[in-house]
């Protein structure tokens, strides 16, 4: 039997001595779409940051593709990426932003890959590639940030409220681009969203979080 993509055991996180996350067990299969929902402060983002290897848990163990992750966070961040609700774009062109993840990995064919990633999020490379970040609307900036992550074809794409501040059209394009990445590249998706309708429709499982715990799991 294949090991799950993520295997969390007795994972806890604390902020200022207070336990803000307590997950006795969580398995996320490879290639799955997992939704996470819950009220503000329920631990969704804390869990996502642990899954993104940005933070180490205060207690417990995280295994990724069957292997322990402690001390391997830097290497794993090359395969796992996170996009937040209000992402930061670098002070360079749209193409420079999308190419950044490729450059730090020394990947070739950067132009072709950035064009493909921009097209995947519904941005015409001919029109948008040379624009500066201040020449983008909020929705376009969000899509550029997503393209920057799709360009290096991550194993896992973690999305924290990816459509919360977007208009309907941009939100639909972001959702579609994420789903296409799963279908085309086998990228696993973990999506935090208040949009329960969408999560239920596309996810293999939806976790409901409350007070730092997984209160429910809808397969």
């Amino acid at each position: 039997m294949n090991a799950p993509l993520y295997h969390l055991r007795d994972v806890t996180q604390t902020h200022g001595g207070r336990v803000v996350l307590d997950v006795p067990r969580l398995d996320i299969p490879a290639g799955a779409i997992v939704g996470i929902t819950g009220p503000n402060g329920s631990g969704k983002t804390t869990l996502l940051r642990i899954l993104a290897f940005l933070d180490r848990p205060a207690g417990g163990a995280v295994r990724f593709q069957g292997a322990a992750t402690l001390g391997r966070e830097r290497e794993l961040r090359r395969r796992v990426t996170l996009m937040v609700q209000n992402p930061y774009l670098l002070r360079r062109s749209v193409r420079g932003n999308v190419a950044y993840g490729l450059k730090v990995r020394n990947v070739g064919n950067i132009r072709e890959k950035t064009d493909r990633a921009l097209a995947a999020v519904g941005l015409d490379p001919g029109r948008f590639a040379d624009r500066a970040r201040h020449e983008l609307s909020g929705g376009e900036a969000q899509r550029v940030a997503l393209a920057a992550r799709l360009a290096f074809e991550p194993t896992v794409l973690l999305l924290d409220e990816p459509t919360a501040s977007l208009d309907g059209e941009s939100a639909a394009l972001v959702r579609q681009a994420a789903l296409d990445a799963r279908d085309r590249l086998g990228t696993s998706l973990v999506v935090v969203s208040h949009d329960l309708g969408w999560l239920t429709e596309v996810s293999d499982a939806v976790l409901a979080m409350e007070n730092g715990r997984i209160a429910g799991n809808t397969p």
Partner: protein
Amino acid sequence: MDYILNGLWQALGLLVSGDPQTYSAIQVTAITSLLAIVASLGLGVVPGFLLGYADFPGKRAVRTFVDSMLSFPTVVIGLLVYAFISRRGPLGDMGLLYTVPGMVIGLTILGLPIIVALTASAVEHLDARLKPTLLTLGASPWQIVTTTLWETRFGIMLAAMAAFGRVVSEVGIAMIVGGNIKWHTRTITTAIALETSKGEFAMGIALGLVLMVVAFAVNITVSAFRRVSEK
């Protein structure tokens, strides 16, 4: 009032006719200021970046010291440099007194705290989302540092322009260390001081006009960089 207008008229004549003395002072000022800014950038960007980026014991004290150096009187810097490079000083054998390199050393000491302090401020004011973004894009620690430095580029240019504005218009260091030697170390500011004391307003006004144009250009450039860096 007549003598001021007369001086202004003669000043324009000196500038238009390419008066060698006037242009010698302009040339010395440009050379010493530019070399001092290049040296200040070379010496100050990395410490400024570390001061803004890293946390270390005594950081606040270092920051306070650097900020205090911003208002260090130029005549005191001139005096200290003079003490070191004069014949009796520890660097006296190098023959730097009353030379352009000696002036550049003094002006570099003047510009350095500006570069360090403003670079540190620029790094401190970077968006807090930058580092997590770079981490999630897979950057290594070294790539994070170099990218952060590149994100600060407009702030560093702003620091360079601010330092240039201070260096180009100072008089104490140029006078004490340079000695105001005609054709060699006479700068715009020392020439203005000398010519005015001699009652020669024309050259003083001519050089004053050049200095005002430089200051105006520096301010416009600083404003432009500030607008770009805020985007």
